[in-house]
């Protein structure tokens, strides 16, 4: 018995000197940076146990050995952490106070003080057994989140800013370089060896050490635990790297340590894919930066919002960006030869281009093109001096003649993206519509959305970008987010919605043959002027990816209907998308007409009537809206979308009981509907049912912690209920988050000096080279 016990201890601890030596070397030296293609030694031998086999039972000796290891590991970590804190704290810039080590970021850590970088097992350690994950991660954005020039250029500006400095960069680095932040490296006289983590950005054990999500406020609102890759039999975490034998004997304990349920939730992604600029960063006020999470929550994929125009199966962020695929390297985390992607394919082509990660670049481009994410529809044409809309193109007959001045309607549908186009940092990422008209010889008749020889985008292109501005009305060209005071222009296509882009051109008088219209959605990471800021002007051209396109050939003379392209939406959906686009451009009459065409094609489709109704509510035509909504409910009495709009109309009519009934029904079926919670809260508030109103606004705030209506009403309700502290807190948040009354002035200062963007900022505008000053040839001219 004793012999067995000793042997077991030796077996478990046999790895100790090896691991210890490797770790010491890492702590002293700059960790060599393996290239993405560098080979890793084969993983240790492992034969997975049958899926339904129970975990191995440890002998008493094995338990004792693990307990001894754990005791030593805990002591070692405690000693190292105390020593690290003693070294770092004296020189640390406690700009935000000793209790706010990581402000303006929201990141928190387990225990007190900083966590030493050495506490985080290296990616190479994890990669020994997870070679597929490691290889993918090395090329992915997460591992390069800090070191890329695209990030460094902007964060360095903040670090060098005379009135701010490196302490303020904790806001950015909490997501881009969390180990740097929580190890206390972000201070002027840093005592931390940065080579140990800068190159790895978000390493394996940053995400896999997150113990809890504090909120959905973003800015890294997570609590990072002391990293552990295994727990003991009681479920207690054993810090640091352990011998691989220990993990391979108890993979279930490894899983318990690193695979928390929260990793599968969209709220986990929200921690960093939702960001705001707090007053602690900008000395101004809260400004929303981006929130892909909320956009997802409002999309059809979350199934939390009953008001979407279309429906879909439930899909999380991970469902699109971490798709399971076959492995090509050994990985003990694989299931049936597949692993969830650790490439997080999305839209970043610049980083793999810069690093020469060709596989990541090619997969990123494939991802952008493969998802049926966008639909481009050259939906209609309209001849100047003729109000008739020739639509849908391809399904109706019409005539074209030389010298006709034509307006083309291009409808871009955000069909299957779970967030807006573009979701984040629209000041840097660039997507736009390119539209060409060519004659039968390929000669260009009209071209919008071209790239100039210097790489700059046509300033009159229809782009899905934004223009954040300073308090002087100057464009924040270099992602100096701390100077943003307003957004002069912000153009995006929210998930599930559509945008109409109109182009006007004249057919040449001497035309022969047909003309070809092509609309493309192009995407570039990053905007040329930002690339110039990073590299100077002498850098290679960065990739431009065509995400979706559609071409139509129009004959001079008579055109007959033709078979649709397989990728085309059905006719009813084409009209529906036009209606949505017109609604968002405040063209209510035309929008109702488009939705009415949907009714003609699908007379038993309740949403067609609801769409007419909701447009008429926006148009303040409540009687006809009521007729439309009632029709939708007559087709489907449980149609929850129509029920919501019926609630609004019942309120208008003073039918409080029905109003409450409607909203309660929506909340009952969609408890995370922020709109329904908000409206029900308002209804109760108006009825002086304070407790019930409070319940709704508190629920709303859990869904969206930034909802202004919730802040405002809660501040009043708490005060009425004798809870002044909570009232004051809500009031403060309302004031902080409400858009500054001066913001429009800053925006207007910018727009006055940028007529091209000024035109673009008007929802209903036309692109034309015929009379640019007037925005194209006006009808009736």
């Amino acid at each position, binding site marked *: 018995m004793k012999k067995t016990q000793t042997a077991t201890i030796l077996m478990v601890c046999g790895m100790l000197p090896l691991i210890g030596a490797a770790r010491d070397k890492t702590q002293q030296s*700059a960790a060599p940076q393996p290239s993405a293609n560098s080979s890793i030694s084969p993983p240790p031998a492992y034969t997975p146990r049958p899926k339904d086999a129970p975990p191995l039972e440890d002998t008493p000796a094995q338990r004792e050995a693990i307990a001894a290891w754990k005791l030593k590991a805990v002591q070692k970590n405690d000693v190292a952490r105390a020593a690290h804190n*003693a070294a770092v704290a004296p020189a640390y810039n406690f700009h935000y106070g000793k209790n706010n080590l990581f402000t303006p970021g929201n990141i928190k850590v387990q225990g007190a003080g900083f966590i030493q970088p050495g506490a985080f097992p290296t990616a190479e350690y994890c990669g020994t057994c997870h070679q597929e994950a490691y290889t993918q991660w090395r090329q992915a954005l997460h591992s390069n989140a800090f070191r890329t*020039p695209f990030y460094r250029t902007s964060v360095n500006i903040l670090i060098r800013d005379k009135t701010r400095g490196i302490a303020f960069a904790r806001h950015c680095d909490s997501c881009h370089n969390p180990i740097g932040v929580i190890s206390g490296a972000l201070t002027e006289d840093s*005592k931390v060896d940065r080579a140990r983590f800068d190159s790895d950005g978000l390493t394996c054990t940053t995400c896999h050490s997150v113990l809890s999500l504090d909120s959905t406020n973003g800015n890294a609102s997570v609590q990072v635990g002391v990293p552990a890759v295994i727990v003991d039999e009681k479920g207690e975490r054993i810090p640091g790297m352990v011998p691989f034998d220990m993990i391979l004997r108890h993979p279930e304990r490894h899983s318990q340590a690193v695979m928390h349920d929260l990793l599968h939730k969209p709220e986990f992604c929200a921690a960093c894919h939702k960001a705001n600029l707090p007053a602690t960063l900008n000395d101004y006020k809260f400004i929303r930066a981006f929130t892909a999470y909320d956009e997802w929550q409002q999309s059809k994929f979350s199934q939390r919002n009953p008001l979407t125009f279309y429906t879909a199966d439930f899909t999380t962020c991970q469902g699109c960006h971490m798709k399971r695929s076959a492995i090509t390297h050994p990985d003990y985390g694989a299931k049936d030869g597949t692993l969830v992607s650790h490439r997080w394919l999305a839209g970043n082509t610049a980083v793999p281009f810069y690093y020469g990660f060709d596989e990541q670049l090619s997969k990123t481009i494939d991802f952008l093109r493969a998802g049926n994410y966008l639909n481009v529809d050259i939906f209609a044409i309209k001849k100047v001096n003729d109000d008739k809309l020739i639509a849908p193109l391809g399904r109706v007959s019409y005539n074209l003649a030389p010298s006709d001045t034509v307006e083309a309607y291009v409808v871009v549908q955000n069909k299957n993206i779970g967030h807006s186009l573009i979701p984040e940092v629209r000041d840097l990422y660039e997507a736009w519509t390119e539209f060409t008209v060519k004659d039968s010889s390929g000669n260009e008749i009209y071209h919008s959305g071209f790239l100039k020889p210097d790489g700059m985008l046509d300033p009159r292109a229809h782009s899905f970008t934004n223009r954040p501005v300073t308090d002087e009305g100057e464009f924040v060209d270099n992602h100096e987010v701390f100077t943003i005071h307003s957004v002069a222009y912000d153009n995006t296509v929210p998930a599930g919605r559509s945008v109409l882009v109109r182009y006007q051109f004249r057919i040449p008088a001497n035309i022969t043959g047909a003309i070809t219209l092509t609309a493309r959605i192009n995407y570039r990471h990053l905007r040329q002027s930002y690339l110039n800021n990073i590299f100077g002007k002498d850098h290679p051209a960065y990739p431009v990816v065509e995400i979706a396109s559609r071409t139509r050939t129009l004959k001079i003379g008579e055109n007959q209907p033709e078979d649709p392209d397989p990728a085309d939406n059905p006719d009813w959906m084409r009209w529906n998308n036009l209606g949505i686009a017109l609604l968002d451009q405040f063209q209510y009459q035309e929008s109702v007409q488009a939705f009415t065409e949907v009714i003609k094609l699908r007379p038993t489709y309740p949403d067609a009537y609801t769409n007419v109704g909701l447009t008429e509510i926006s148009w303040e035509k409540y009687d006809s809206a009521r007729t439309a909504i009632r029709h939708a409910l007559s087709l489907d009495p449980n149609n929850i979308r129509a029920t919501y709009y019926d609630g609004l109309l019942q309120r208008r009519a003073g039918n409080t009981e029905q109003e409450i009934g409607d909203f309660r029904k929506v909340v009952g079926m969609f408890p995370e509907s922020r709109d329904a919670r908000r409206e029900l809260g308002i209804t109760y508030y108006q009825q002086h049912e304070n407790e019930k109103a409070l319940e709704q606004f508190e629920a709303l705030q859990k869904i969206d912690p930034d909802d202004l209506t919730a802040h405002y009403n809660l501040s009043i309700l708490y005060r009425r209920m004798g809870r002044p502290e909570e009232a004051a807190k809500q009031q403060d948040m309302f004031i902080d988050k409400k858009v500054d009354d001066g913001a429009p002035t800053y925006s207007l200062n910018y727009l006055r000096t940028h007529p091209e963007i000024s035109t673009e900022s008007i929802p209903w505008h036309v692109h034309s080279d015929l009379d640019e000053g007037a925005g194209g040839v006006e009808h009736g001219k």
Partner: protein
Amino acid sequence: MASNFELLAASRAALRLTLMAVMFVALSARAHAANNCPWINEATASGIIGAEAVGSYTDPTPSQPAVCNFVQSGPSVTRTLRITVLQTPHFQDLLQAENKTCTGTATPMVAIGNEAIACSADDRRKVFAERVVGRVRDQVFTITLSTTQKDDSILNRFELKTRIATAAEQVSGNLF
């Protein structure tokens, strides 16, 4: 099963160990003055050199580059990490001139600044060195990692090449 006495003794030992380590690190941290090198801190430079190094920084003049110098001197070996940075409109000329200081074949580096090369820069077998020459926009930088010992147990040729790549990423990243 350990007795209470044994557990108490173990925890006292752990406490003593913690205090000693804390004092050691605190003292060693205080022993170094703040270093002003804008592109790499002393702890990182020490990690790259492989032992505790002392740094110095010299401001640039119109004709001379800014210089960071980190030196670890021992009885038998001196290890140095030297970084120079000069901002100039004639950066291509300067790059070409600096490239000529290589004593070995220059190899282009991927993803370091706008462009960079790595090469050996040994000095007649007295100094064994690797060098990176590159630029970020119009800032030309050189990084030289050297040892005076031919078969240095820390900075052998492989380590020189590996570690200077880390230094190059740190320096270029801070120049962006």
